């Protein structure tokens, strides 16, 4: 029998909301509205996605999977784009990158028989890959913009000595990738030691044996590790060039970057 949380039990989750609400009220933090709104919104979103997933899982895989993956990638693109909206073509590049990574990872999963081409397996696993790649791309974009601003003098010095934009940005690319990959490496190092990963926890709660849950967790953790690394690398290597114009000159303001390709 599947483990189930009754609606009555679920109702008592309200206690977990009352605690931060009380704290906010007592210390006059002014976040009470936000706490209530986030809780209601999160609950509605989760139930909605629950019903959508139930519907999609019932569809034939060849329709349900491409449909849901496309929706996920489009939403992820719009979300990550916020971090680099001044950069030209960033939306297309993010979409292309996320799509290529998802198709690559999914192909490997299916090729090596790690999962079945079933919505109930492909959609949650792909969601994790796309979500983590989206975060990695967003962070890389943000970090790259900061690096370009902070290293303005070095970039000018490098260009003035005759460096090509690619050579001048080497340090920026290196720093961006380093900053994007280190948390990823650290996360993998401590996996299972500090907290049990979400997917594994979910499978164990769902009645799957811990060893089987670990196998799934390994598939997803290593897939995320690889896709996050690739995402950061892809977006950094694609986007650094937009900080320069065709005359190998550094574009120093958001306005210059925006208008450089128009």
């Amino acid at each position, binding site marked *: 029998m599947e483990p189930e949380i009754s609606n009555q039990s679920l109702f008592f989750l309200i206690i977990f909301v009352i605690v931060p609400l009380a704290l906010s009220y007592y210390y006059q933090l002014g976040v009470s509205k936000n706490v209530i709104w986030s809780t209601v919104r999160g609950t509605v979103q989760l139930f909605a996605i629950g019903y959508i997933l139930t519907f999609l899982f019932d569809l034939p895989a060849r329709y349900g999977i491409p449909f849901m993956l496309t929706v996920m990638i489009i939403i992820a693109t719009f979300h990550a784009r916020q971090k680099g909206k001044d950069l030209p073509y960033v939306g297309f590049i993010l979409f292309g990158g996320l799509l290529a990574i998802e198709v690559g990872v999914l192909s490997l999963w299916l090729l090596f028989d790690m999962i079945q081409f079933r919505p109930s397996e492909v959609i949650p696993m792909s969601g994790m890959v796309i979500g983590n790649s989206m975060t990695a791309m967003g962070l890389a974009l943000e970090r790259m913009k900061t690096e370009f601003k902070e290293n303005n*003098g*070095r970039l*000018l*010095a*490098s*260009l*003035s*000595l*005759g*460096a*090509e934009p690619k*050579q001048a940005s080497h*340090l920026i690319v290196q720093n961006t990738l380093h900053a994007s990959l280190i948390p990823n490496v650290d996360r993998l190092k401590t996996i299972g030691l500090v907290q049990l990963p979400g997917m594994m926890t979910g499978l164990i709660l769902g009645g799957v044996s811990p060893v089987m849950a670990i196998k799934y967790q390994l598939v997803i953790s290593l897939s995320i590790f690889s896709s996050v690394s690739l995402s950061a690398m892809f977006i950094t290597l694609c986007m650094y060039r937009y900080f320069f114009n065709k*005359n*190998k*000159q*550094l574009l120093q303001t958001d306005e210059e970057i925006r208008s450089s390709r128009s």
Partner: protein
Amino acid sequence: MFRFEHVYQGVLQDINFTIEKQDKVILFGPSGAGKSTLLFLLNRLNDPEKGDIYFNGKPIEEHSITALRKQVGLVLQAPNLFPGTVLDNIKYGPSLFGEWEDHQGKKLLDYVQLPSDYLERDVDQLSGGERQRVSLARTLANSPEVLLLDEPTSALDYRTAEEIEEVLECLMEEHQLTMLMVTHNLNQARRLGNRGLFISDGKIVEDGKIPDMFDQPKTEELAKFLEQ
């Protein structure tokens, strides 16, 4: 060597002048007058919005950008050294063109009057004056014909600034370089330059020999500036 014809860029308006080989030109004037912008145009870190710049008789845009930047070296106000050792920094330029030879290191440090054991020193361990010398050596490593200096001593204390000035004086004599230097220090301008360009509000207000300009300014604007 350089010719500006009706050049406009940012604050710069209708700039016209010629620089001959081995000229030692001092660009001076109030802050925000466009002096650094002018240097950036010569190294092509920027292009004019309007007008033409000629280098060695050819429009500047007909030269390969990277080759031009190698020929027209720029030293910025802040040293902006790259992480690593002094050697990593000074071989940066020549390595881009596959021209670095190890024996050059000591010679370059000698030019800027730093001991040769500094080559392996991490740039984080250098003082402000040493960093500016390394920055100068890094630009000289490319063997430029023209040296552009954007207030290279403004962030340094008086004594260190004087030392850098001495280094520059020796370099100019030894290497027959053409130089354009932005400075707010009029004594430095007198010592290092033979020609002055006084820029104010984006325009060249006076162009002449340094001693004449300082002793007998032709315009009221320059006279006022010198008084300040």
